[in-house]
């Protein structure tokens, strides 16, 4: 009834459909199949031998224990910090709220390997903060910041972004009259928070907790950079097993990780569906911030609020400052004494420094474009015709959403490390394109979620109005539909590019000499003792943060703030 623009050219549409189905078969189904095959039937015979070998390896057991310990501790610490931050920003009257909000929002732009490298820079061997701490406490060893401590510490201050986004939104929907009622019945502001506000927030807290669990279980960049050489978590171990030529064990372990992740997502969906307590009252009163009566408590809250802000801001500030400092000052000075643009000039002029940036931009742009085209095609098709075919196509491309990155990466490696008919009998592993393919596969589900929301929020009457004014299908698509979803398309392009620029997990599995991306350059730079290399790293991190900041500001302005 509402023919799309493309449907008037059945040949073009059929050709596109064939390409999209081929993408799904080659880059989603084939890798999943490879993982299952190597895990359960490595030599051709079906068996569970890989599980026994995994269980028998001390290194594997330690990594699993580490992963659970880190995740358990992170859940507690992230919630403590995250809930406290939200209370400070939205429930309590605390001075300097604008500054605090800025500080608490930094985990949105300081992510993944960039953040890990940044923490390593300030807390590591020659880090400014390590030097500062040693001046107070000379017995502190140079490498104090490693292992579980370092990883949990970094998680604690880097994974609060979910609280900042979702819990803050939830507390704003709390009906303030319930707080007033509680206080009228004799509850103090703290009691009211604990007894009235928190229970209402509980579903959201649970959902953010699951997101933290999900992130922490799959954490890769942070333990790799900060954990030290003898500290493994599961994802890192999967990579190691793969490079030790034990694809069966790597595949099995990635299945285990996948099950844990699926469990998390299922629980999250359950919580989402159960819904939250919104609106007993028809006219909810917006939440108001409460002045803390006790001066002692007030002082303590202010002190804690600012301490957290400082912890979150200082690494970023030092990274940006030193990116403008002469390279030689990095290992020697606590704060830079002179400034220069030399490091930036180096990154953009010296080919070894520029190549990773160029690679990441090129791979990011091609993955984003391909992902956007596929998402647009699939979402548009499923929006227009709901049937078994379109629904399964839609679900196929959503599948990577519930699969952890190592699972897909191992799948791509096992499928394309030898000539494969699906890609004209070529070997993709070791080539340039395997990594952007991986980026695209994991980006598509997020793009599809946003695009689908945009398509469903389009008023069908607009299309019909245009039609009754005489506009043919393709004209309507170009002049009515596209302009209305364009802002979403531009934003998801930016957001995806942003994620890919500092993407570490997929990169670590699939990169090679032909396509070394920014994140891997950062990781390698963090391990080198050369101050020139450190300076280049700081420029990379600053550029990544600047890009993220731009994208997030845009997204915020257009009301699209952070999808999950």
């Amino acid at each position, binding site marked *: *009834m509402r023919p799309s623009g493309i449907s008037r050219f059945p040949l073009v549409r059929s050709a596109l459909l064939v390409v999209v189905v081929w993408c799904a078969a080659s880059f989603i189904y084939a890798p999943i199949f490879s993982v299952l095959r190597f895990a359960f039937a490595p030599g051709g015979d079906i068996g569970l031998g890989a599980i026994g070998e995994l269980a028998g390896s001390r290194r594997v057991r330690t990594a699993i224990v580490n992963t659970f310990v880190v995740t358990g501790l992170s859940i507690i610490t992230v919630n403590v910090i995250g809930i406290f931050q939200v209370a400070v920003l939205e429930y309590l009257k605390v001075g300097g709220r604008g500054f605090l909000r800025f500080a608490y929002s930094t985990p949105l732009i300081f992510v993944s390997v960039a953040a890990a490298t940044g923490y390593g820079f300030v807390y590591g061997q020659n880090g400014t903060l390590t030097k500062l701490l040693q001046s107070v406490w000379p017995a502190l060893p140079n490498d104090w910041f490693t292992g579980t401590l370092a990883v949990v510490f970094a998680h604690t201050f880097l994974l609060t972004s979910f609280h900042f986004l979702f819990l803050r939104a939830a507390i704003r929907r709390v009906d303030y009259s319930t707080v007033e009622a509680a206080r009228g019945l004799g509850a103090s502001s703290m009691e009211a928070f604990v007894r009235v506000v928190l229970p209402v927030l509980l579903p959201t807290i649970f959902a953010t907790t699951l997101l933290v669990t999900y992130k922490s279980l799959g954490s890769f960049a942070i333990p790799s950079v900060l954990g030290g050489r003898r500290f493994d978590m599961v994802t890192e171990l999967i990579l190691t097993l793969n490079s030790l030529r034990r694809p069966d064990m790597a595949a099995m372990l990635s299945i285990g990780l996948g099950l844990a992740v699926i469990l998390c997502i299922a629980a999250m969906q359950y919580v989402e569906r159960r819904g939250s307590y919104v609106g007993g009252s028809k006219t909810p009163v917006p939440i108001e911030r409460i002045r803390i009566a006790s001066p002692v408590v007030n002082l303590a809250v202010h002190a804690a609020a600012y301490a957290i802000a400082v912890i979150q801001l200082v690494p970023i500030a030092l990274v940006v400052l030193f990116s403008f400092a002469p390279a030689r000052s990095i290992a020697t000075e606590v704060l830079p004494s002179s400034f220069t643009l030399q490091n930036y000039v180096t990154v953009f002029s010296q080919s070894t420094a520029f190549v990773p940036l160029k690679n990441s931009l090129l791979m990011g742009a091609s993955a984003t474009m391909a992902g956007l085209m596929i998402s647009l095609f699939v979402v548009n098709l499923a929006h227009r015709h709901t049937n078994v075919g379109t629904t399964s196509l839609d679900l196929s491309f959503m599948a990577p959403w519930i699969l952890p990155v190592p699972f897909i990466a191992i799948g791509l490696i096992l499928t394309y490390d030898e000539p494969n008919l699906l890609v004209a009998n070529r070997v993709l592993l070791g080539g340039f394109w395997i990594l952007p393919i991986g980026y695209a596969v994991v980006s598509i589900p997020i793009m599809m979620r946003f695009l689908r929301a945009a398509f469903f929020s389009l*008023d069908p*009457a*607009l299309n*019909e*109005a*245009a*039609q*009754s*004014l*005489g*506009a*043919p299908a393709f*004209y309507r698509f170009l*002049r*009515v539909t596209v*302009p*209305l979803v364009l802002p979403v398309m531009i934003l998801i392009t930016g957001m995806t590019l942003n994620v890919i620029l500092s993407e570490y997990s997929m990169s670590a599995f699939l990169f090679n000499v032909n396509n070394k991306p920014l994140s891997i350059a950062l990781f390698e730079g963090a391990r080198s003792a050369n101050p020139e290399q450190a300076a280049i790293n700081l420029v990379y991190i600053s550029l990544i943060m600047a890009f993220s900041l731009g994208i997030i500001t845009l997204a915020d302005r257009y009301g699209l703030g952070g999808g999950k």
Partner: protein
Amino acid sequence: MIELDEVSVRYGSHEAVRPMNLKIETGEFFTLLGPSGCGKTTILRAIAGFVPVASGRITIDGRDVTEIPAERRGVGMVFQNYALFPHMTVAENVAFGLKVARKSGKEISLAVNAVLEATGIERHGRKKPAELSGGQQQRVAIARSLVMGTRVLLFDEPLSNLDAKVREDMRHEIKRLQRDVGFTSVFVTHDQEEALSMSDRLLVINAGRAEQSGTARELYHSPATPFVCQFVGAANEIGRNLAQALGLDTARRHFVRPEHVALAREGDPHGVDATVADVDYLGSMTRVFLEALGEPLQCQVLSDPSVDQLAAGMSVKVNLSCERILSFDGPS
């Protein structure tokens, strides 16, 4: 002239519109009236070409448009929420159809200015739709179709998003535009007062079936079915006891409008005994809820001092003149 000849519409196995015949004259203000879910929007969308008909033919000015896609029917539609393009200014919205038709820039700006002026929104041409009030948005929606030279406009409950005062104004506004420009209007509403006050003729629809068409007066005074009788204006269904007392055929259904129930004093020799159950004072009118022979009966009379004395529990007599009783075949 718009003609529907045995037109029916299906959604899957559900027949939303039963085979229906309808003639709408050129320049007429025609209303489809019926309860929500009865198929009014579906009929409108069939005329506009947004839903295919399951059977029958639709002709507009003698041209069979049954198989013609919506964009080539030359029928304008004013949607419930107006469906203005949010990314275009008012003038761009109005120019949209002309641009599609590849008119020259000069022609477009002349036509757009003329229609903006005719609809009284010339001052808002550069604004975006979101900056306009509901009433102004409606004018843009109408202007957008009129500029195309469209002489048939379909309105799908365009007033239901407005508050009472603006609604009243917009009714007159639509009527004025229709008189001035002379387009044919097919108007959908579930509000009988709106329908009665605006229409030249109306069609009452119930559960996908055409019940009766005619002028407001015809429908009110000579309803063809019990449904029309009750949906257009208020009506009492006369209960069995009362019907027997009045000597009516109890195999049929009988109705009487509240204003045709006459009250008399208790001692009056004519009429049926009744008790006042409740009294609603409505200003110029008073509504009296009665119980006659154990059956409820509503009566509406002009307020006057004798009526003011009525109170719950009082005994009165009621008179129903036979020629005011509306009778229909079928079991009571």
